[in-house]
């Protein structure tokens, strides 16, 4: 996973609530067996017409937002399906940071696991950042994870909260599995607790 330390980039404003993962990546594109290549179909229904031509009024089809690396939306971003294809599609498009007043739980988690930083900020602040984003190419935002602050184009700093464990993993570009495997002895001893004796095993030959 790529490290996330500091990002200075164009932000795309999407002033909409409940942007669900079916919108971010429609089901018909989930047939891939890879993580990459989904970016061209991110937001497919809003981005392309029935003939596959770009719809000019959709923000990510406009300059400079085609090059956006930050997305700002309203409440409940990423609701719906658990598909990790949603953050994969965003990442493949180039998005590294998503900002919203609230997120759906699974999507929020999935972002971290793919090197995307999700930031929760009050709606009024999202509105201010949305206004910055609307100024276009000369109005980049800087997201500094080390200092936990977003720097607006006017120089104002907006502090944000992030879970310390998640912050550490992002800053170092670490994956969870290796970390958890270091606790193998504890996992094994848990498995042998007498109180767990009731949990049946599923033998491979019995499933058919």
């Amino acid at each position, binding site marked *: 996973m790529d490290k996330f330390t500091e990002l200075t980039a164009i932000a795309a404003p999407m002033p909409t609530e409940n942007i669900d993962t079916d919108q971010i990546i*429609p089901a018909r594109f989930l047939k891939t067996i*890879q993580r990459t290549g989904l970016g061209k179909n991110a937001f497919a229904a809003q981005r392309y017409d029935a003939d596959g031509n770009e719809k000019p009024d959709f923000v990510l089809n406009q300059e400079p937002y085609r090059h956006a690396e930050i997305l700002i939306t309203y409440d*409940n971003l990423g*609701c*719906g399906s658990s598909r*990790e294809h949603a953050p994969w599609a965003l990442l493949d498009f180039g998005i590294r940071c998503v900002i919203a007043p609230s997120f759906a739980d699974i999507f929020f988690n999935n972002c971290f696991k793919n090197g995307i930083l999700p930031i929760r900020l009050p709606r009024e602040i999202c509105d201010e950042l949305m206004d910055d984003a609307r100024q276009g190419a000369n109005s980049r935002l800087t997201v500094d994870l080390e200092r936990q602050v977003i720097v607006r184009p006017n120089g104002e700093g907006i502090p944000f909260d992030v879970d310390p464990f998640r912050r550490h993993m992002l800053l170092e570009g670490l994956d969870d599995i290796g970390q958890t495997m270091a606790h193998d002895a504890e996992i094994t001893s*848990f498995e042998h607790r007498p109180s767990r004796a009731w949990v049946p095993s*599923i*033998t491979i030959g019995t499933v*058919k």
Partner: protein
Amino acid sequence: MPVTNSPRTLFDKIWDDHVVERLEDGTCILYIDRHLVHEVTSPQAFEGLRMSGRRVRRPDATVAVADHNVPTSDRSKPIEEPQSRLQIETLEKNVAEFGVPYFPLRSASQGIVHVVGPEQGISLPGMTIVCGDSHTSTHGALGSLAFGIGTSEVEHVLATQTILQKPAKNMRVSVEGKVGPGVTAKDIMLAIIGRIGTAGGTGHVIEFAGSAIRGLDMAGRMTLCNMSIEAGARAGLVAPDETTFAYVKGRPFAPKGEAFEQACDYWRSLASDDGAYFDTEVTLAAEEIIPSVTWGTSPQNVLPIDGSVPSPSDEPDPARAAQIQRALDYMGLEAGQKIAGTPVDVVFIGSCTNSRLEDLRAAADVVRGRHVAEGVRAMIVPGSGLVKHAAEAEGLDKVFLDAGFEWREAGCSMCLGMNPDRLTPGQRCASTSNRNFEGRQGPDGRTHLCSPAMAAAAAVTGRLCDVRELVKETV
């Protein structure tokens, strides 16, 4: 294990019994009892294991089945769509390589993962259950802590049999009283989502309680817990009780004999203690719930069947007003119109929300002696091969076929546009599934969520209508 004397909730108890270790910042390594795997969210996880030379830690706690991509037509034919075929072949290759138990496509036990797990006794009360699918919450009906995870977490569970999580907040939704005739678990859940909204449960696990919930059979409880995710919750739960034990007893992978009795004693001890603390409490009166449908493109856009579609002009917040307008445009509805009477093109009875034997019986009760309205395509997709066989043994297939319904093989089908069963642009569908998002059932398809009985009523009248009117006629 933290042993405390303060009263705990059902969620607290299951959680505490699965914490392997609590890390410094409060994140827990949580042990997983059952990992269900399907073809769409697992290929990249197995690939990750392969690349890092890792194995599946507990193949004997893992079960795979293909459901999302599979065509629901004749199973003896190969899958035509090359990408769907590749995804299923990839799953078959992966389960063989990693030694994971698998229900093959031609098996009578194949079906939607959230129907198969409980039906086989693979999912049991008191367990932690995960699957790379948000509707894993379904299994919470058994009194297990069950939630959806992303593909990175699928890989994490395959490798370590644990996940990293912080405890959720507790929410209790109590539905007290008795629902009227024609009102089902689906209507109760739509009413709950309408009340708390699609983000109402964010960060919470919802325990469903109250006399109306206790009175539901297991299929109804599964419908309820299934849609917890549509209320934004991490999971839904119903405390295990005698209804649960009677359901579990004798299932192929459930404990047997003495072991079953001992397990029941443990499961009984899991119910929330008197005085346990809930961060959020919501109460609904069962008598006030009437058959419901959704009008828009979010599950919270719900209306009682005698209601009218909202108008953007009634919404003070301009962003929200614009969203109502967009939903109306997408759905092809006028502000203020009555929802009843809206003509439908397609009726879909199926999905992990409503494809169990009890759901099919409820639909058949409405259909018996009637015929699908002209110009309507109506389909029944049982949740598993076993549900299909059981329904056929009762003659339900005949009721549906005689009435002009399609009677199909098990799978996710038209719940999401990933297999050949899809809406075409502009088609309007009464659907027993769980999501009415834009394009969910096919690009530009229009979805109205409702119960199996309501969907059946729409099929025979050709319109969204109050099933109670039809049932009255037959009495």
